């Protein structure tokens, strides 16, 4: 008889997720150990859901004590072997999109009878602050009961933790109570989730696991002062999140796609979200609605203040939004932009106010100007860098790249709105993120000739509940003091925040704190730099694109990040079959990926080696 928890002879006896977060930079290691208790070779699967924003940094496979480590290589180099394998029909993508926040990394190996296998995947990400907290999201989905299942999270924040919480969507509070511990004190926080075998059972006599869902850790740090600078080994990171400032009034134009494809649930959810958003609009704000299908309809001829009367009228208007016809994105957006530009020109809106365009669409332009590049050019020219454009893409069958490029060209961002039951909440959540700008035209300044390789240091807005993160390298590691100024325009006045750091004291203090991993600021800087280079690259052409690619590739290789430019090659024992596998980091363009197939590793004859790939795209 097989021991409890074994399925088809394979017992996954240990799964450990170890997360170490230092100054928002998370280093996660997922380790699964399994043994084949059957009398013949069996396939063992290893599935990990990791955040889309994370970079894999390592994957190793250990069979009966022999470890096969991963090596990061330039994608093009690895691709040749990959293509050869593809041509033989033996390749499989190892990473695919999984839901709205995650990517799924999947491999499987054939393990001989009585043998043990250990999978270890490492990934890193910079946790971003949204609505006043950092969120770390883990998907928990073991395929069977696991004798030793454990999530261990250690958080170290030099500013001190102000709150820490952990929630599991899949287990009741009374069961969770004994399996979950969470604590924080001063600069350290700890979360541990160790459900026993009985706690994992979906029912007292069941052998299947109820661990299937989201495990979310949220925390925030103390903010006695608006900024915090940390310096280790010549690299610095500067976190900036002031509090207590009045909100800058907003001039918001909602550009809403009401073409035929929005009919039914999508437009219903849009109406629901807009009604909720109208409840949150502040009286100092100005707004208008632009509806487009084949033509364009405006709620008002110009922006109107969000007085109670106007909001009442806006609600009545939103409730009556119907759908019909084609998709004229160009004219819809240009009308919205004109409304904002005119309001500013005619002094209809407060001098100190900020404008934003939020477009919601589910599809490609198919009437009027429908060439994507031309629409982007028109929008770019009309906005002229004066305010951001946020594009919300509804549904899966839209040209998301087009929306994202256009948003990035105009200092905004694109978000996908998933057509689930909570689409209206997603829309509302997005609005809440941008609803409270506290500063405009933020610039973080450092002493000239003192720093190198600075990440993005100018931002059109600082939103309440978010955080600006700038990292860089000190030119002179022996410098004694470090000064940073953050300048921005508030709702009423201009502000300059100054942060001065004694470098030696800081380094000493941080060393004394026993940092969890010493080079985390350098890795954080590399992560942020690569992320921003890749973002810029989406919007670049020709030589500029080549330069950005070269820089991002260089850093990806140097810091062992699996990014869209690199592949991770894992040596595996020869099994007399020419096989390869690739893990593509799925893009947001919705391009379907090669479906994942099993990755067969026969280990019985390890005389020679060949390669498999863990890839990001």
């Amino acid at each position, binding site marked *: 008889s097989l021991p409890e928890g074994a399925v088809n002879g394979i017992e996954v006896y240990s799964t450990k997720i170890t997360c170490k977060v230092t100054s928002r930079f998370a280093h996660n290691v997922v380790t699964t150990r399994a043994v084949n208790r059957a009398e013949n070779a069996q396939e063992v699967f290893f599935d990990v859901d990791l955040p889309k924003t994370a970079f894999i940094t390592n994957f190793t496979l250990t069979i009966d004590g022999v470890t096969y480590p991963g090596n990061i290589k330039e994608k093009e180099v690895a691709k040749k072997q990959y293509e050869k394998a593809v041509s033989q029909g033996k390749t499989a993508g190892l990473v695919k999109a999984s839901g709205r926040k995650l990517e799924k990394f999947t491999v499987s190996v054939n393990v001989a009878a009585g043998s043990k296998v250990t999978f270890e995947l490492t990934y890193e990400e910079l946790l971003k602050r949204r609505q006043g907290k950092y969120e770390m999201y883990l998907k928990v989905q073991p395929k069977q009961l696991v004798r030793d299942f454990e999530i261990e999270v250690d958080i170290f924040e030099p500013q001190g933790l102000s709150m820490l919480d952990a929630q599991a969507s899949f287990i009741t509070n009374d069961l969770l109570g004994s399996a979950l511990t969470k604590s924080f004190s001063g600069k350290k926080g700890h979360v541990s989730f160790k459900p026993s075998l009985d706690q994992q059972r979906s029912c007292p006599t069941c052998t299947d696991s109820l661990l299937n869902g989201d495990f979310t850790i949220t925390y925030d740090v103390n903010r006695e*002062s608006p900024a915090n600078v940390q310096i280790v080994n010549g690299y610095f990171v500067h976190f900036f999140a002031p509090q*207590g400032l009045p909100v800058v009034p907003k001039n918001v134009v909602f550009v809403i796609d009401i073409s035929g494809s929005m009919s039914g649930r999508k437009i219903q959810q849009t109406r629901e979200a807009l009604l909720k958003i109208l409840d949150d609009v502040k009286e100092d704000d100005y707004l208008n609605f632009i509806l487009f299908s084949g033509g364009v309809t405006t709620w008002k001829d110009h922006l109107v203040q969000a007085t109670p009367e106007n909001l009442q009228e806006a609600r009545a208007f939103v409730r009556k939004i119907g759908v019909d016809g084609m998709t004229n994105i160009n004219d819809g957006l240009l009308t919205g932009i004109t409304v904002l530009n005119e309001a500013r020109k005619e002094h209809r809106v407060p001098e100190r106010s900020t404008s934003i365009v939020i477009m919601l669409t589910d599809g490609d332009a198919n009437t009027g100007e429908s060439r994507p590049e031309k629409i982007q050019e028109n929008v770019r020219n009309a906005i002229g860098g004066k305010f951001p454009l946020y594009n919300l893409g509804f549904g899966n069958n839209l040209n998301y790249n087009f929306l994202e490029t256009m948003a990035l060209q105009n200092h905004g961002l694109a978000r996908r709105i998933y057509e689930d039951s909570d689409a209206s909440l997603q829309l509302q959540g997005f609005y809440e993120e941008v609803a409270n700008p506290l500063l405009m035209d933020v610039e973080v300044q450092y002493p000239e000739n003192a720093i190198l390789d600075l990440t993005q240091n100018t931002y059109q807005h600082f939103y309440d509940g978010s955080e600006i993160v700038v990292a860089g390298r000190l030119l002179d590691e022996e410098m004694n003091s470090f000064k940073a100024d953050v300048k921005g325009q508030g709702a009423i006045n201009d502000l300059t925040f100054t942060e001065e750091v004694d470098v030696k004291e800081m380094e000493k203090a941080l060393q004394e704190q026993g940092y969890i991993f010493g080079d985390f600021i350098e890795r954080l800087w590399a992560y942020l730099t690569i992320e921003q280079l890749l973002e810029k690259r989406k919007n670049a052409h020709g030589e500029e694109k080549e330069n950005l690619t070269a820089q991002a590739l260089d850093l990806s290789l140097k810091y062992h990040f699996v990014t869209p430019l690199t592949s991770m090659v894992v040596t595996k024992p020869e099994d007399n079959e020419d096989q390869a596998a690739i893990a593509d980091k799925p893009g947001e363009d919705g391009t379907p990926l090669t479906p994942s197939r099993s990755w067969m590793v026969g280990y019985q004859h390890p005389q020679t080696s060949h390669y498999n790939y863990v890839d990001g795209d």
Partner: protein
Amino acid sequence: PHFIIRVPEKEDAICFNIDEAPGTVLRLVQDPVTGLTVNGQIIGDKTASPDSKARRTYFGRLGIAHTHLDFRVEVTPEKITLWNGAAQSIFSWLDTVTITQDGLSVTINRKKNMLVSFGEGVTFLIVLHQVWKQPPGHQDFLGFYVVDSHRMSAQTHGLLGQFFHPFDFEVSDIRPGSDPSKLDATMVVKSHRLVVTRGSQKDYRKDANGTKVVCWFVHNNGEGLIDGVHTDYIIPALF
């Protein structure tokens, strides 16, 4: 709290104390022309002495208002709150920040002081005094300094404001006082004849150590030196 009035024309200084119960709000500066007022609320040591004369009192809350700009700032040892009309900004003494807008500039220097300037010609300095936490009865307090007042009108009044205009005093008959280590003298000021004592106070504008300022101390809550009596300057609220 201690008050120090420098009289540059005489190259001398006058000082006095106001001894009032914690919670009392005093009008320090009021200028009906520029619309500027400065008021201060008194705090005492946490462990209050039953003897009011032995009680130490300080400014624990200062309020500066500019009616023309619709601007107010309230400063305590814990935080600094600015109001522009109804819009509120809150800062901490751990911030180093400069806030500028038309006709106004506020600079907070982390854990030290803050400068409030109304255009050219009116600048106030507020100093944060952080006391040693032992013994526990003491608490942090504030100092208020007028750095520049030359744009304030001749109608400016208040416990400090009345001294923005040039005034004269004469000191004579310097003699040993009741405390043999100090000198007493006769001061003629504002048509009053007062017995004053030579003493010293500290000016903390430059640093936390303070600079010694030798002054003539006017007894009895500045009686005879200030217009009216000190209770005339008590107001019901900070703003």
